């Protein structure tokens, strides 16, 4: 029985003498809508990279639905149900939108290894990809190369790929970053409509989005968790105010 969807125990990371993460004990509940905030340089991206397996922690454990994934590589974690989007869009730029999503779905279904039947004839993959695109309003762009899309829609493709993996835990690294304001509404809509059985951790600087989306917020400062709680608790916490007001003045 897994009480948490994703959990870290005493997670630490240091580069030589520089410590970027100290004793992080973090819990993501199943079906959570959880946000991770903190000033620049707090170590949020490092934390996410440790969760996804891009960097190895110096010490500590990471558990996905109770399974220890600390030593597992990126691909293994993805197959166990951990999906992520990247802060800087990491897409197959010259490939059509459909392929971008289909590649992930094919991996999930084990179809990607098949060498005989043409990919486009694998309708179980392409149909699912098209359906997914439709829910995100990207169906008309299915055959367009990603690099020809406006940036806001590229961010949506980023989310689509992650969703295609049918993750149990989804890490969204600044999904609205760099998106012009008229498009970020769309992103918000989509985030709100995500299935409730997926546990979602979102890293964001946009406080508006954070407070509208999250039911729980963790504040990370200088590699340590400062405080964790509901949006109301965080908003009224004087230490958080100090960190952010200090930021605003400095």
């Amino acid at each position: 029985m897994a009480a948490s969807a994703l959990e870290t125990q005493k997670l630490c990371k240091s580069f030589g003498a520089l410590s970027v993460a100290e004793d992080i004990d973090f819990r993501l509940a199943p079906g959570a809508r959880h946000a991770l905030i903190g000033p620049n340089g707090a170590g949020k991206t490092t934390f996410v990279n440790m969760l996804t397996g891009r960097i190895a922690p110096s010490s500590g454990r990471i558990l996905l639905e109770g399974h220890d994934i600390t030593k597992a590589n990126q691909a293994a974690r993805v197959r166990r149900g951990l999906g992520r989007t990247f802060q800087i869009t990491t897409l197959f730029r010259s490939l059509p939108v459909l392929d971008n999503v289909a590649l992930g779905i094919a991996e999930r279904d084990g179809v990607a290894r098949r060498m005989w039947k043409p990919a486009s004839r694998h309708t179980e993959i392409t149909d699912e990809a098209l359906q997914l695109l439709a829910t995100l309003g990207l169906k008309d762009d299915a055959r367009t190369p990603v690099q020809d899309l406006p940036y806001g829609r590229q961010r949506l493709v980023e989310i689509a790929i992650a969703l295609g993996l049918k993750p149990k835990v989804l890490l969204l690294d600044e999904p609205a970053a760099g998106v012009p304001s008229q498009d970020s509404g769309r992103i918000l809509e989509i985030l709100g409509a995500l299935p409730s059985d997926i546990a979602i951790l979102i890293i964001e600087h946009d406080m508006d989005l954070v407070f509208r989306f999250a039911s729980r917020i963790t504040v990370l400062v200088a590699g340590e968790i400062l405080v964790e709680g509901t949006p109301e608790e965080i908003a009224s916490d004087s230490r958080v105010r100090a960190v952010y007001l200090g930021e605003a003045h400095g």
Partner: protein
Amino acid sequence: MSGYTSNPRIRWQESLPWILALGAFFLMPEYLSLGARILTYILWALSLDLILGYAGIITLGHSAFFGLGAYTAGILSARYGVTDPFLQLLAAAAAAALLGISTGAVILRTKALTLLMLTLAITSIVLEIANKASWLTGGADGLSGVTVAPILGLFKFDLFGRTAFLYCLVALFLGWLIVRRLIYSPFGAMLTGIRENTTRMHAVGAPVYWRLVLVYTISATMAGIAGALLTQVNQFVGLNVLGLEPSGDLLVMLILGGVGRLYGAFVGPVVYLIAQDYLAKQYPEYWYFGIGLLLIVVVLFARGGILGLIDKVRDKWLQALSRHRSSAKASAR
């Protein structure tokens, strides 16, 4: 070309290479030996395109597999008297596959320059071994006395190269079938994904390393078969199938034809080898100069090679045509 939105139906243009090849068979009987050699290089180029054009592995060491296959066939025949062509091919394929999987597993964890260096080092080692183990390989003199028994007991390798040509053509056809299937399959789409954005592939759960090792081994096997075919056609194998030079040549051929577009591997070797046959013997310096210049021009202005240029020209032509049509329609109203 590959991927989930592509159309895998065989287009009429795709029959051109085979029509041309058969045409050459009937119409140019004096050139069939050269033709057979060209066919083996096309097969070799196909194998390189698989890893270079589709998976994005940049290697200068592909001659290791070609040469190993060539020598395996040669040694089996000249030293051990195994003359059945299919056995020779099988042995070459097995040897190359073994080398491919063992070196691939070891070096594919690295990237960029390190990977390039390792491929170079490996083919250099194979060259050294071939050079020094002259009791087995004939050393710098090469291995002659390679005999190939008649294929299926019926078709003898004749002086004019007719059997050789058709034999290689059939082999190429089979190789082409396999590569084409692979490219259009989900596996091929996945390879393209690795080439386009390896980080993303990791992030969708692809075991990138193992996939690369697999395609590297497949490519090595094909290259080994191509090498064996060359030995069978020439009835000789020498050191010139190993080392940096043939790898570089093949790279140039593929770029010339167009990387990552399947038929670049057909166009490139044909153009290069025919031109080389005419020019290199008479004016070797000008040949090198010309190829070097061509390479630089291609890199700077025509990355898609000959086929890329044809595409561009065709696109411009189609654009002009549609503009003409729409302006004709407009003025007709």
